[in-house]
C-alpha cells in the first residue's frame, strides 16, 4: 500500500463536543489513518453546494481511524459539525509534506496557538516513541478555547499553558512564555500567522532550527491552482525555481502551502514586514 494521497470515502464514526463551536470527529478511512504523517491534512467534500473542498489537519490517527479537531469557522465547518454519525464523506488524503523529526538527544519545544494544536498529535506520538525530550506550549484566547489537551496529555510530556486573559495557566502569549523556557534545539510551531512570524523571528535570532505548519485559504488543496502560495527565499528547496520576474527586486520566490508545505523551515520563509 503506498502512502500517496487517495480519493477515499470516509465514514463519520463519532462526534464529540469540545467547547462551544469546537468539535472532535473520528472518521474511518484506513488509507489516511495508516499513512498520515505529522502535519498532513485531508480535503473533505461536504454536501451543500460548495465549489471547493474543506482542508483540515489530521489530528489523531490510529488503526483505521483518524481524528479531526476543528472550529465552526464558516459554512463548511458548520456543515461538517452537523453531519450525523454514519455519514459518508468524500476525503482526499493524506496531503502535504510533514514535520521532520529531530536528531536523537535534541530538546524539542512545540508551540501551538489555538487550533494549531491539531497539527501535533502525530508528532508528539513519534517524539514519545523516539524518547525525545519535549515540552508542549499551548496558547489560546481563554481557557474554554484550550482544546485538544486530552489527547496530547496521554503522552506525558510537560505542558505550558498560556491564555491571553489569564483564565488558565500563564497570562500572555505562547511567545512570551517561550522566552522564559530553557533553550530548545528544535522548535515546531502551528497557529495564527503573527504567532508563527514571531516564533520564526525568535528562532532565527537564536539560531534554533524551527519548522512551522502554515495555513492559507485553499482552492484545489492539491497543488494545481497556485492559490495558496507563501513567500520563500529564492533558491530554497520548496520554491518554484522559476527565473526572477522582470522588475522583481525582492529576494523571494513562492511555494505552494498545500503541496510544497504545509511545513516550512523558518530559515526559508520570508515574512511581510
Amino acid at each position, binding site marked *: 500500500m503506498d502512502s*500517496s*494521497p*487517495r*480519493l477515499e470515502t470516509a465514514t463519520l464514526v463519532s462526534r464529540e463536543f469540545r467547547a462551544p463551536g469546537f468539535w472532535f470527529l473520528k472518521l474511518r478511512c484506513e488509507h489516511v489513518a495508516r499513512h498520515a504523517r505529522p502535519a498532513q491534512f485531508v480535503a473533505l*467534500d461536504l454536501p451543500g*453546494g*460548495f*465549489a*471547493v*473542498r474543506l482542508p483540515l489537519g489530521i489530528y489523531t490517527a490510529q488503526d483505521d481511524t483518524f481524528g479531526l479537531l476543528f472550529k465552526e469557522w464558516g459554512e*463548511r465547518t458548520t456543515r461538517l459539525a452537523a453531519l450525523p454519525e454514519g455519514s459518508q464523506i*468524500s476525503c*482526499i488524503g493524506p496531503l502535504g509534506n510533514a514535520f521532520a523529526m529531530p536528531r536523537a538527544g535534541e530538546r524539542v519545544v512545540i508551540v501551538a496557538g489555538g487550533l494549531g494544536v491539531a497539527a501535533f498529535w502525530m508528532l508528539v506520538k513519534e517524539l514519545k516513541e523516539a524518547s525525545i525530550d519535549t515540552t508542549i506550549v499551548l496558547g489560546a484566547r481563554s481557557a474554554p478555547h484550550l482544546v485538544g489537551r486530552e489527547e496530547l496529555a496521554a503522552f506525558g510530556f510537560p505542558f505550558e499553558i498560556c491564555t491571553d486573559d489569564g483564565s488558565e495557566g500563564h497570562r500572555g502569549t505562547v511567545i512570551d512564555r517561550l522566552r522564559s523556557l530553557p533553550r530548545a534545539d528544535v522548535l515546531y510551531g502551528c497557529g495564527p500567522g503573527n504567532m508563527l512570524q514571531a516564533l520564526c523571528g525568535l528562532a532565527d535570532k537564536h539560531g534554533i532550527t524551527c519548522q512551522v505548519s502554515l495555513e*492559507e*485559504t*485553499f*482552492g*484545489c*488543496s*492539491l*497543488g*494545481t*491552482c*497556485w*492559490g*495558496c*502560495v*507563501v513567500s520563500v527565499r529564492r533558491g530554497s528547496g520548496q520554491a*518554484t525555481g*522559476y*527565473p*526572477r*520576474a*522582470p522588475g*522583481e527586486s525582492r529576494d*523571494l*520566490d*513562492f511555494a505552494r502551502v498545500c*503541496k510544497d508545505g504545509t511545513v516550512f523551515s523558518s530559515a526559508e520563509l520570508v515574512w511581510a514586514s
Partner: protein
Amino acid sequence: MTGAPLDLRVKIGAATLKNPVIAASGCYNRGEEYAQIVDVGRYGAITLKSVTRSPRLGNDMPRVFPTPGGLLNAIGLQGPGIDHFLAHIAPELSKVPTAVIASVAGFSVAEFAEVAALMDGLPNVIAIELDVSCPNVDREGQCFAADAASLAAVVGAVKSRVKLPVIPKLMPNVADLRPIAQAAQDAGADAVSLINAVRGMVVDVANARPMLANVSGGLTGPAIRPIAVHAVWEVAGTVSIPIIGMGGIETGNDALEFLFAGASAIAIGTANFRDPLVHVRALQGIEEELRRRSVASVRELTGMARTTQAKAGSH
C-alpha cells in the same frame, strides 16, 4: 445497449480529440497532481496553465476565496515565463497521458505571437488557446477579449506564426459576445473557448478590506454555469467554428447543457477541486445520453437544443 460502439471524437480545427472532455487552463497543471488519485488520461485533452513571455510571481495572497456555489481567484498568471517553460516543462509534455492544449497569455499582440510561435510543435501539443482576458498594454489597458479589433489583431498575428489550431478564449464581461466571436472567426480562429472567469469581488467585512489582495478576481464554478451556457448559446448562433464550452460543469448533465447549447467540446476547471472524478462522470453522462438517444457520435449532440422548438405557451 452498453455494448454499442460510441464515437466520442471531436474536431477542433485540424486536431482530433479522443473525447470532448477537456481540463481547463489554470486548474490542472499537466495533470501530475491529479494523476496520483485518478486516471487523468481519461480527459480528451489537458489545457496547460497560461504561459507568459516573462516569469511572473503573480498576485499577493490571499488569491482565492470560496463564494456561494463558486470560487473567486486572482492568481495573477504566476508562471515561469516561456524560456523556462521551454527548457524545463516542454520536455515533460510527452509524458502527459492524453493530448495537451497549450495556453498563452500576453499583454501585447507581439507577446502573444512570440510566445505562441514558440509553443507550436511541442510534443503532444495539439492546439493553442489564447487567454485574451488580460489587459492590452498597447491600448490603454483595455482587455483584448472586450474589443473586437484587439482580439482580431491577436488572433491574426498568432495565426500567421503557428500551424496548430488557435483557440481564443473569450470572457463574458462584454455587452454582446457575438461581434467579438465573429471577429475571432474572421481573423482565422479555429475554435473559441468560452467562458473565462466572470469578474467578481468579495469584501472581508471583519477587516473592512477586499478579501483578495488583488481587490477583484475571477468567479468560476457552478454559480456561473447559467452565464456560460447562455454565452455558448449566443455565440453558437453566430459563428460556425467549434466552441469549447466551460464554466461550472460538475456533472454529465451539465456537460450536456453546453453541448446541446452548441458546444463541440467542454472543459472543466473548478469542479476538479471538489470532485477529481468529474471528468469520468461527465464522460459517462455523455455516453449514457448517446445510448438513450440511440445516437452514435457525440458530434450529433452539438446544438441539439437549438433544433427543438422552445416549449410553447403554458396550459
